[in-house]
């Protein structure tokens, strides 16, 4: 064995040793779990963290405790390389979908926004067009007793099988004495989003009284 070979051999050993050590300490394992693509970008994760684009031209991975502009140690670099390889392999193993991570973020953001809007309307009698000072939350704190999971059902006030939106309109018209919303009014959708969100996880039970 030449000196060169020896150098590489020792470096290899060291790397392997470091790797083993880190595995033992659980660090690499957790990197692997953290699979950056499928994990949400943490709130407040800034561009301070090192973000590396992969060679497919679109996927990016974020390295949580590495900073952009910093030099990586060889061990770290090896780990990063492994991460990149894994992330790339994972992407390649998926079918191509037109939905990207960004799309998903948009969906979640919109959902949250509309639910928040519904929350606001639920607590604001003026905003739903009411004229008696009665807001939804006064009788339905946390949307209790709205039972979104039971619609469509025969609504005794409406005397016919109705949807949640029909009943929302009934409440707007009757206790709150406002004008009914169009069934596709963004306000109506927001209210429905908030109310059903409060009942998330409850099994569907249409017709239950």
């Amino acid at each position, binding site marked *: 064995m030449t000196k060169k070979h020896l150098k590489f051999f020792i470096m290899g050993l060291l790397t392997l040793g470091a790797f083993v050590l880190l595995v033992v300490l659980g660090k690499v394992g957790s990197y692997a779990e953290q699979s950056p693509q499928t994990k949400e970008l943490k709130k407040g994760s800034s561009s301070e963290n090192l973000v590396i684009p992969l060679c497919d031209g679109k996927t990016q991975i974020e390295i949580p405790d590495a900073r952009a502009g910093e030099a990586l140690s060889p061990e770290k670099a090896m780990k990063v390389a492994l991460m990149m390889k894994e992330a790339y392999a994972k992407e390649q193993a998926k079918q191509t979908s037109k939905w990207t991570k960004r799309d998903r973020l948009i969906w979640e953001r919109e959902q949250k926004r509309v639910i928040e809007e519904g929350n606001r309307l639920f607590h604001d009698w003026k905003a739903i067009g009411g004229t008696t000072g009665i807001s939804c939350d006064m009788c339905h704190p946390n949307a209790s007793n709205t039972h979104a999971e039971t619609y469509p059902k025969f609504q*005794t*006030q*409406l*005397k*016919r099988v109705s949807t949640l939106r029909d009943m929302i309109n009934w409440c707007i*018209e*009757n206790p709150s004495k406002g004008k*009914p919303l169009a069934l596709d009014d963004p306000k109506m959708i927001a209210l429905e989003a908030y109310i059903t969100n409060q009942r998330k996880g409850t099994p569907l039970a249409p017709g239950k009284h």
Partner: protein
Amino acid sequence: MKKKLLKRKLYLLIVIFILPIFSLLLLHGNPDRYAQASSKFRKNIPQGIPADLWEMLIPEDNPMTEEKVALGKDLYFDKRLSLDNTVSCATCHDPKLAFTDAKRVSEGVRGKTGARNAPTVLNSMFNVEQFWDGRSITLEDQAKQPLINPVEMAMPTHDAVVDKVKKNKDYVERFQKVFGGPVTIDNIAKAIAAFERTQLSGDSPFDRFMAGDKSAISEPAKNGWELFKGKARCLTCHEFNASSPFFTDFKYHNVGVGMKATKNFEELVRKIQGMVQKGTLTEKAIDELALTEGFSELGRFLVTRQPKDLGAFKTSTLRDIELTGPYMHDGSLKTLREVIEFYNKGGEPNPNLDGGIRKLDLTEKEISDLVEYLKTLTGDRVKRLAKGEKL
């Protein structure tokens, strides 16, 4: 030898297949009541009235037959069932007036008046209970009450009614044929009830509208229907849907009618409670008190004695309402417009006012549209009867 075997096999076949069929037919004996009812009367069930509900509500012990219905009809129009032969069922429930009498309160024998407005017989078989206060459950039971009420047909007892009917040989024969027995008060009531079960109302412009004909009612009436379901809050008590198209929830509500005029409410209530304690509040007593000024205003309370039923009366049907004025249990509102204005102002305040009654803030146009809508609930046949067509 083979022929014999074949014959045997043939006989065997007959026994195995045809005999059971025969015996099944025999077991079913009398033709099914439903078959009868459906084939003869079902075709007369008007559009908008569920035929299966109609069939379901025919009592087991009073099946429909043509002869029974004809007998009931004759009894219904027969003034001899009253004390002085001047009043029949048809006097207060006149087919020409949508089976009411256009009077504020009905008039019986010798011009005596009661305290309540005559409800219609049309669709009365679908009522959960009969009368404004639900004091009779079945049509049969209801038919017996006016016969012995002193301000209606004023006969002294049911036996007296039976005796009178028995004097007529034709009736005696017919009762024998229909009921297989003599004239009894129960059979009289059954016959009348059977006739009443053929007096239905549907086939109105609104029924055609609900069946899909969008041109069946006018634009103002369509707006009236929307108001009926929405701003005017009518539908919740005047329930209408495919399963219950009668414009009533059959429940009892105090809207305050008659409350203004009744000054001694508390005293009346105490008197009733006194009668309960003494045991003098009998079925007949209730029937008479219901038509006595003052006590009449207690409404459903007379029957149930529950505090929440004070001054509560049954939600009336709205079918043919154009023809059944004057309105409310005491006939105090003359026109449909007056009725809607009454509700618009929030009824009449009183300690037991139904919590569903409140000011409606309807505009003039909205009130007109509601009236236009209500006019679309008149059945075609009922209209023809009003114009003089024979029943």
